[in-house]
């Protein structure tokens, strides 16, 4: 029975993701018609470079939200990852070593969040607010002022091409493949089940605690990767630069049709949401709209996306009710 509910909910999520993807295509078309270079390999690579950090970070957030929990710690992990890469990658650790260290940081922060929320039953919003502020503090302690140096092999490696395919495109493809595999797995189903109805999931034998811990750890790892890629893009460390990410991460998830109450939505929608937020800025710029008005459009698109998501979820539920 829980499986049926999950399947129905997932049918509904399809609508949100499809709508977001549709909007993304329309916006990209408008952008491309005003900016002919948009369709060249360089233009696409550039766009992907601008999207990939938000896409990875918002993907991490999606895992936590799908199982019905909030996670505000993302920008904190990204900040630590950034300053760690900026201070260690040029030293003895090297590129690979700093990547390992960054992953470890994501694992630790995500693990702590998960233990506090899943095993000690604390409120996720409050816990991750605490870990966000603490992580930002740690980042400031590691690197009090902007500076440091990201080693060239990372900076050029991540932003460049492998066999004329932009690396961000590969990362995006890997994320999608990972998501599709996860969604089919037992753990993926468990995440949806826990987010949809925790009591029912528990009664049907799923381990709620492990599922939530898994989601938080996965989120932490994705934030860490996002921080690593972000470092490669800006080429130096700045403990404060990721502060503004939080709103856009949530915006990407919300626009992508994932319900903030959990159990409905998915990573594909989130990726489309991140794309929309990036293309929106480029589209408005290409249309000659002043830079600061993009914020207004960001806000309005968020609200419209949510209203649309609610409407589609409502429509998706109606026939189901009639049938039973």
């Amino acid at each position, binding site marked *: 029975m829980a499986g049926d509910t999950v399947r129905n909910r997932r049918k509904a999520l399809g609508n949100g993701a499809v709508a977001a993807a549709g909007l993304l295509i329309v916006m990209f078309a408008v952008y491309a018609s005003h900016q002919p270079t948009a369709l060249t390999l360089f233009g696409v690579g550039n766009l992907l470079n601008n999207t990939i950090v938000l896409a990875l970070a918002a993907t991490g957030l999606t895992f936590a939200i799908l199982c019905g929990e909030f996670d505000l710690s993302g920008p904190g992990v990204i900040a630590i990852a950034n300053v760690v890469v900026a201070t260690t990658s040029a030293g003895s650790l090297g590129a690979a070593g700093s990547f390992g260290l960054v992953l470890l940081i994501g694992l630790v922060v995500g693990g702590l969040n998960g233990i506090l929320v899943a095993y000690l039953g604390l409120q996720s919003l409050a816990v991750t*607010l605490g870990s966000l502020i603490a992580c930002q503090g740690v980042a400031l302690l590691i690197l009090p002022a902007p500076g440091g140096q990201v080693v060239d092999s990372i900076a050029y490696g991540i932003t460049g091409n492998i066999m004329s395919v932009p690396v961000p495109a590969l990362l995006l493809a890997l994320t999608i493949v990972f998501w599709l595999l996860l969604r089919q797995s037992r753990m993926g189903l468990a995440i949806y089940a826990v987010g949809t109805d925790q009591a029912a999931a528990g009664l049907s034998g799923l381990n709620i605690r492990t599922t939530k811990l898994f989601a938080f750890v996965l989120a932490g790892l994705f934030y860490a990767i996002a921080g690593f890629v972000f470092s490669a893009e800006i080429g130096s460390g700045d403990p404060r630069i990721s502060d503004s990410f939080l709103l856009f991460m949530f915006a990407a998830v919300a626009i992508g049709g994932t319900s*903030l109450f959990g159990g409905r939505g998915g990573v594909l929608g989130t990726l489309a949401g991140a794309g929309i937020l990036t293309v929106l800025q480029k589209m408005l710029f290409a249309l000659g709209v002043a830079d600061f008005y993009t914020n207004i459009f960001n806000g309005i698109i968020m609200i419209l996306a949510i209203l649309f998501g609610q409407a589609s979820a409502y429509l998706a539920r109606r026939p189901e009710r009639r049938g039973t």
Partner: protein
Amino acid sequence: MTDKDLANPSQATEFGLRSSRRQWIGSEIVPALTVFAATALLVVGMKIANPSFGSFEQITAILVTAIFLVVASFGQGLVILLGGIDLSLGVIIGIGGMMIAEWTHGSNDALLYAIPLTLLCCLGIGLINGLGVAIAGIPPFIVTLASGITFYGVGLGFTAGNSQQPVAPAIQHFMSSRWLGVPYPVYFIVVFVVIAWLFQNRSAEGRKLYAIGSSPGAARILGLPMAPLTIAVYAISGLCAGITGILLAGYSSSATLDMGNALLMPSIAAVVIGGARVTGGSGIYLGTLAGALFLSTLSTVITTLSLSQGFRDLVQGGVIIIALLLQRGRLNLRSR
């Protein structure tokens, strides 16, 4: 978040056991008193470590800088009491400060209409948040996030991002002068706290907010005016943010659109440290006040010790999690 009670069975049974109002308030006051005690301990500890600290001057200085968080966290506390959250608070503070600076242009002449107009605009943003939550039925997290982003854009559009006119001297004077040796802001805090406390914990409206926050379904069946109260709470939060913006502009004698952002997270932290659940329906105003005073004092102490800001953030984050763990211990102890 509807299954919050299921996630924490001890909490669910506890609501059922709460019969008398006095008993309820009584149990909620423990975290508030703990945080007050921690604040006092912080001051006394500093006094021992550094005898020049803790003079009357310094205590009042701490209170003056605490005014922003005290005012802002009241609105945030009410919203959280309803099970919502106000993420637009930082932006509204910035907008309030920018408006008062823009309209007064460093003279007192315009103050008579500038203050009410500024407060009205901030209240209006709160009202929009409330309408989005209560009428459109959009999750508070999204509504306030989106309105924050949107109005930040509007603010940027009007100011082109960088105008910082001097604020009316009267407001600067208010923030920096004393009467009978005590700074004006301290009187302001006292009056504000009394009004806030009376509203949240001693008025019929306040009681209704607790009812809605702890069980929206039951409140609806009881026939409580859910939508008007919800809208009013978000409007009050906007109003408080507006007051904070005016005071902050007076304190720093100029305004930037970003100046409120640093208060958003602490305003939520103050409510949480004070013992409220972010899922709504619990916590008392004295807890929020204690949380705000604690965070402000902590900030001052760390500045006095000339520790880095990173250390301050680390401690603040740790304090939130410790407060949550203590809260959990308290709940388990009582349900036993």
